[in-house]
């Protein structure tokens, strides 16, 4: 059991990285990765929202939508729940952890429209349909791993971008073009992890 959970966790970070492998959540990846501290803050917020929204959407899908034959409403219901959740988390943070609220600032409401969060909640359900042993716990671990994968990609790329800042980039490539080139190279490097988790854990 533990071994399979670890495999799910590692796979979510390395081989199924949401940014570098599934190309979801590219907007914060390019927008917020300029500085290391904001990148870390954003990623932690995304991780928290991913886990909580998976914990909320999975039971609703399994125990409300499926019995009523309403699985096709998945997208719209999930968006609704995620939006409300983010708003709720914002209210809670504002009241109890104002320091974190100020540090996250505009990023927290932006997560509402982050496709990586919606992607995680929908893909764990797809996985559950393909493999019946992939239940609620596995979904949560997968969501947590996806968030950590998001963090890894953001932090790595923040480092890459800081290196780019200090270099002499040709004028035609300055700004977004060189960032996109760097992003694609980082993504290609992550393809190298393909199969590593299965080999490692049998």
């Amino acid at each position, binding site marked *: 059991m533990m071994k399979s959970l670890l495999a799910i966790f590692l796979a979510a970070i390395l081989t199924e990285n949401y940014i570098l492998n599934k190309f979801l959540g590219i907007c914060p990846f390019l927008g917020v990765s300029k500085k290391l501290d904001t990148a870390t803050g954003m990623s932690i917020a995304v991780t928290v929202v991913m886990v909580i929204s998976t914990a909320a959407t999975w039971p*609703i899908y399994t125990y*409300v*939508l499926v019995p*009523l034959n*309403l699985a096709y*409403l998945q997208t*719209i*219901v999930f968006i*609704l*729940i995620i*939006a*409300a959740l983010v*708003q*709720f988390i914002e*209210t*809670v943070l*504002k*009241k*109890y952890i*104002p320091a974190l609220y100020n540090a996250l600032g505009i990023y927290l409401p932006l997560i509402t429209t982050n496709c990586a969060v919606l992607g995680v909640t929908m893909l764990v359900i797809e996985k559950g349909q393909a493999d019946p042993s992939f239940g609620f716990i596995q979904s949560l671990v997968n969501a947590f791993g996806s968030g950590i994968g998001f963090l890894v990609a953001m932090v790595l790329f923040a480092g890459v971008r800081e290196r780019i800042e200090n270099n002499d980039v040709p004028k035609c490539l300055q700004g977004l073009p060189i960032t996109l080139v760097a992003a694609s190279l980082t993504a290609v490097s992550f393809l190298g992890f393909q199969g590593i988790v299965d080999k490692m854990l049998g």
Partner: protein
Amino acid sequence: MMNEILIPILIVAGIGLLCGLILAFASIVMAVPKDEKAETIRELLPGANCGACGFSGCDGYAKALATGESKPGLCPVGGAAVAKSISAYLGCDSGEMEVKVATVHCLGSYDNTSNKAEYEGIETCAGAAAVAGGPASCQYGCIGLGDCVRACQYNAVSVCNGVARIEPTRCKACSMCIKACPKHLISFIPAKKQAVVRCTNCDKGAQTNKVCKIGCIGCMKCEKTCTHDAIHVKNFIAEVDPQKCTGCGECVDVCPRHCITLFDSNL
């Protein structure tokens, strides 16, 4: 048939209602009391959100004032009156406040300069300046498409005969026009009687003479005439030190190019 439509509607509406209720409940239970001090100070500030105080806007400045991070008197738009009311509210010293006004350092009207090219692009100075430095013959001079006019919230700037002009009595020193001018022709001067050089052309005299009838050629006549050591020619352009200038007008009389004018904000 109806059920197939009704049930999904009810389910989604129910989830939405539930989420809404939870959020409404949470916002009441976990309401954060607003900083009343900052709110009151925000009411006292003019609300121009120009950023001239160095903060992101009036809200940022009000917050800094409420926490004691900043002092009253940084708001040029509100001026002394606002500084006084805020310091009265906070119970601290308002401090000295220098009154400044923005002024345009160019007199290159259509009569004095010519156009080296016809510009038919978008009607902004920034756009025109991007095309080979703008259509005016003088590369330092006013383009006259009115970026500063649009930037001003107080109707203090007008473009007259191809050159911008700022009405000193209306100017609130918010620095929006200074930021808008692509030629950096506008700057702050103290609101007192003084001589102002209305030119920024720092080319050599002969070159300036070719492009503008009224541009400063750096002849040094003003510098030699001034008895207060207030005007100096640097880089072929005269510069007035407003601290030393008494507004006697001797340099104005002696300038062969008539590009020095006597400024008086009370006029």
